[in-house]
């Protein structure tokens, strides 16, 4: 780079007077001011003036020297301006403005001097001409230097641009090579295709992964890599990508290798766009996830297999069983041996869990080797329970033979550490046609049969018998179907009237639950209440009956503080429930019925030896105003004294009392006297007495004579559905008979 700050060559013939030079200085200042700011000149203003002073001196010198070449000097001056970087055309026009506005005389060069130092003959006109010639030459020098400079700079910048491009090209080459190295060396498969799906390039990893030769890839299009197992989504995503609607997607996909095998891969496809953002290419990254999937399968295996023995677990077994049933041809049979170890708990308890576990593993191994490759499957359902499934069995004989084999292998002495242990198993055997049974039924039957084998003495097999099962099934299925029956509203409440003996008026109604069973028809409480108590569904059942009965009673009686009531039976188990009091309160408030209109019947046995909770419950109910009655009274007279401590309202004499009484003749038999004293004792305790099982007028008469208050039985009417007794015949005059009917009687629950 040349420095424009070099001083121009010192002026040659500068011999003018100081006064003349003063003019030069002044003119330089004017000139500098005129060109200032026309282009960038890397000099302070003062130095610009100095530069121009120098130029003016040279101009002056050549004017004074007749032999000097004005044009040459003028051109040098013009070029010097360019050198100083006065490169703007305006620098020239301003320069010409300044110089042409002056005459040579101003800078003390009115006429050139000859060699002797005299002013020449040309005179002022001559001087004027030479000045113009000089100034014109400045313009010429400026222009040609500017042109020169501009061309040179253009050349420089174009060369620099070319150089930069070349550099970039080389760098691109290097970076391409780097990319190439990544592409070639990557362990992940990489493929590049255009938007028509033509494959442009693939890397060696992809060639290795899929096994096609490179040329084969290039011949193919992306669509040809469709795999029969591809879900539709894969190609939807692909189409969206090609349409530019998404920039990438990732999923697991199978590819067919060249040799026909399938390989699982993780595939990421990205859209490559150009600088304008238009889609240009697609880039696929593919890597083999076979090992990963294997690992995943392993985890899944663990989820489906018992970690101790490695056998299929319950979940897996059920799936197998379902699959078998779902895919088997019609007429296929299947058998199941369900076994557990006899006394396994004792092994665990006495020898420790580790030994127990070891034992289970040994049994599992033996079962496995027993079934070998017979096409049977073995599973551990949990604890010491194992099953062997026989798909496509031929009949019970085959299964029994298998059960005997199982008993034998299990019974072989086992070495557990230093110990010899003998274990036996019991086996339940079922063999059925798939058409007549469900997987769940098959398993349940086997389970049931195993139970029989155990109950019958262990270390043996038992074969499933449908008849034996049927009885147990009734129990079993009733109790398990009860909750669903409740939901389906198969449980109904029927009502039986309780009448006063004196005038036959309505004393109350007893609510009696019925089960309208879809197969077995209407079932009475004796068929299922005990089951419900055992299974616990009695709580829900009892709550349901309470609700229904209260609602029905309100419909019949409205809200009253006395008069007929509805009487609901409580099972013993219900009395033990803490929620009972709340359930009763709910049933009353939901229905609008008064507590006095509800009576709860409890059995004698339920309150004998009453625990404190039951006592408190009864008291709470009594405090609420609910009537309490002892049902089926008559089995333990001795307890009447005990009952004294309970907040009771009514005693219901069991039907056996009446049945055991003699006919008309023996009125004053001991039994009658006993009954008479019982009734008077009850009255002494302030209890009303009602007799159950009243069938004849004679019985009514007898009971009346003994002072009994009310009766219930076929004589007064059987239990009927509420529709059948939409109005009790004497209900209408209740209002008239009972002055305590309340004004809000009609405002029941909404």
């Amino acid at each position: 780079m040349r420095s424009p700050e070099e001083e121009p060559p010192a002026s040659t013939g500068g011999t003018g007077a100081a006064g003349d030079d003063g003019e030069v200085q002044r003119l330089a200042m004017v000139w500098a001011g005129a060109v200032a700011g026309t282009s960038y000149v890397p000099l302070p203003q003062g130095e610009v003036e100095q530069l121009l002073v120098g130029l003016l001196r040279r101009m002056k010198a050549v004017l004074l020297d007749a032999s000097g070449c004005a044009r040459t000097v003028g051109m040098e001056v013009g070029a010097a301006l360019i050198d100083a970087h006065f490169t703007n055309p305006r620098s020239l026009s301003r320069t010409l403005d300044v110089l042409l506005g002056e005459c040579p005389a101003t800078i003390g060069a009115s006429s050139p001097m000859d060699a002797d130092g005299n002013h020449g003959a040309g005179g002022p006109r001559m001087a004027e001409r030479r000045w113009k010639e000089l100034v014109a030459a400045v313009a010429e020098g400026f222009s040609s230097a500017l042109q020169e400079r501009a061309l040179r700079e253009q050349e420089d910048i174009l060369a620099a641009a070319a150089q930069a491009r070349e550099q970039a090209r080389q760098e691109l080459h290097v970076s391409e090579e780097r990319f190439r190295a990544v592409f070639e060396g990557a362990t992940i498969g990489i493929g590049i295709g255009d938007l028509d799906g033509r494959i442009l390039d693939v890397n060696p990893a992809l060639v290795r992964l899929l096994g096609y030769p490179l040329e084969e890839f290039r011949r193919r299009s992306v669509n040809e890599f469709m795999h029969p197992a591809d879900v539709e989504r894969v190609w939807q995503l692909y189409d969206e990508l090609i349409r530019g609607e998404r920039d990438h997607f990732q999923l697991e996909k199978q590819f067919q290798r060249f040799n026909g095998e399938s390989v699982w891969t993780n595939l990421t496809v990205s859209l490559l766009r150009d600088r304008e953002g238009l889609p240009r290419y697609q880039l696929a990254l593919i890597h083999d996830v076979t090992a990963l999937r294997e690992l995943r399968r392993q985890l899944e295996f663990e989820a489906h297999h018992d970690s101790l023995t490695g056998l299929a677990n319950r979940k897996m077994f059920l799936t197998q069983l379902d699959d078998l049933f779902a895919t088997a041809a019609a007429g296929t049979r299947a058998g199941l041996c369900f076994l557990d170890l006899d006394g396994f708990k004792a092994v665990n308890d006495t020898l420790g869990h580790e030994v127990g576990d070891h034992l289970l593993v040994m049994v599992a191994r033996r079962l496995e080797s027993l079934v070998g490759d017979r096409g049977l499957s073995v599973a551990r359902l949990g604890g010491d329970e194992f099953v062997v499934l026989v798909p496509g069995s031929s009949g019970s004989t085959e299964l029994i033979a298998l059960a005997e084999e199982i008993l034998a292998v299990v019974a072989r002495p086992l070495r557990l550490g230093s110990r010899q242990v003998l274990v036996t198993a019991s086996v339940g055997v079922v063999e059925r046609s798939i058409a007549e049974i469900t997987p769940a039924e098959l398993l349940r039957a086997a389970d049931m049969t195993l139970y029989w084998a155990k109950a019958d003495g262990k270390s043996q097999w038992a074969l499933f018998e449908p008849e034996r099962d049927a009885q147990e099934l009734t129990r079993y299925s009733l109790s398990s179907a009860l909750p669903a029956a409740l939901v389906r509203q198969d449980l109904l409440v029927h009502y039986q009237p309780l009448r006063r003996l004196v005038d036959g008026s309505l004393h109350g109604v007893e609510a009696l639950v019925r089960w309208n069973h879809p197969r077995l028809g209407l079932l009475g409480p004796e068929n299922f209440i005990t089951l419900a108590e055992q299974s616990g569904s009695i709580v829900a059942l009892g709550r349901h009956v309470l609700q229904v009965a209260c609602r029905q009673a309100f419909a019949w009686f409205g809200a009253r503080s006395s008069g007929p009531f509805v009487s609901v039976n409580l099972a013993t188990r219900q009395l033990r429930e803490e929620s009972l009091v709340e359930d009763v309160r709910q049933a009353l408030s939901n229905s609008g019925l008064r507590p006095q209109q509800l009576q709860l019947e409890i059995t004698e046995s339920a309150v004998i030896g009453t625990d404190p909770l039951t006592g408190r419950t009864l008291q709470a109910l009594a405090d609420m105003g609910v009537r309490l009655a002892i049902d089926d009274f008559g089995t333990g007279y001795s307890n009447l004294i005990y009952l004294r401590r309970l907040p009771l309202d009514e005693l219901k004499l069991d039907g056996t009392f009446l049945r055991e009484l003699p006919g008309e003749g023996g009125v004053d038999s001991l039994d009658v006297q006993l009954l008479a004293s019982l009734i008077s004792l009850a009255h002494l305790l302030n209890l009303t007495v009602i007799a159950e099982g009243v069938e004849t007028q004679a019985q009514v008469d007898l009971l009346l004579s003994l002072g009994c208050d009310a009766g219930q039985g076929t004589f007064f009417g059987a239990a009927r559905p509420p529709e059948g007794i939409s109005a009790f015949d004497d209900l209408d005059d209740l209002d008239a008979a009972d002055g305590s009917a309340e004004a809000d009687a009609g405002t029941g629950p909404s």
Partner: protein
Amino acid sequence: MERPSWAPAEVDLTRPSAARVYDFYLGGSHNLEVDRRMAREAIELWPDLPAIMQSNRAFMRRAVRYVAEQGITQFLDIGSGIPTVGNVHEAAQQADPRARVVYVDNDPVAVAHSRAILGGDERTAVIQADLRQPEALFEHPSLTATLDLDQPLAVLMVAVLHFVPDEDDPNGAVEKIRARLAGGSYLVLSHASAEGRPEKAGSHRQLYRRTATPMTMRSRTELENFFDGFELVEPGLVWLPLWRPDDPAAAEQQPERTTGYAGVGRKR
């Protein structure tokens, strides 16, 4: 957007370049038709522009002279552009012939041009680097071969930081650079600001969107932050012509019209 250091820079001669447009404003011919077209449009909208650029370049010359007088002989000119007349090394070597200068620019054409011009000079080096990646710059072998980072030096960021948008964290970059400097080093900085001619700033910024380096004008307060860790020398951060003018009388006419702030700070 930043490109990874291993990806090649693009040479796109169809877009104007800040370096070449600047050269045009200064009266140079190191420019192409696209550059001139943009510059002429800009001048049409804002006739002061050439004067502003000259004022900026003049500040740089004065600042180099000033720090050279303070005994600095090492210069790092970041965003050096196309060496028209009055380059840093000329000014610096005039003060001390041993002065060393490293020119840095991210414009590949500017770099190629600088290399061509400075080819033979052992006391100068030209590096293609981006100031947003100071680590790469300070590790560059040409830089470490030319400058002694244990000694004070002058870093010039003259009319360059306004090409670094806020999201690229110019303050972070300046801080990283400062961290590499020995105590007693100088920061020479000038920067466009909308404060002088707010009405002109918008259209001007618009024009620079065509280049690879759009502009971000900053307020004086924002610019002061660049001097964190430096002590501003007299007269502080001022309009370009007011920074130690050669001729104080000439400088005082409407200096805000240059809309550029200039300052020199000394690292503590």
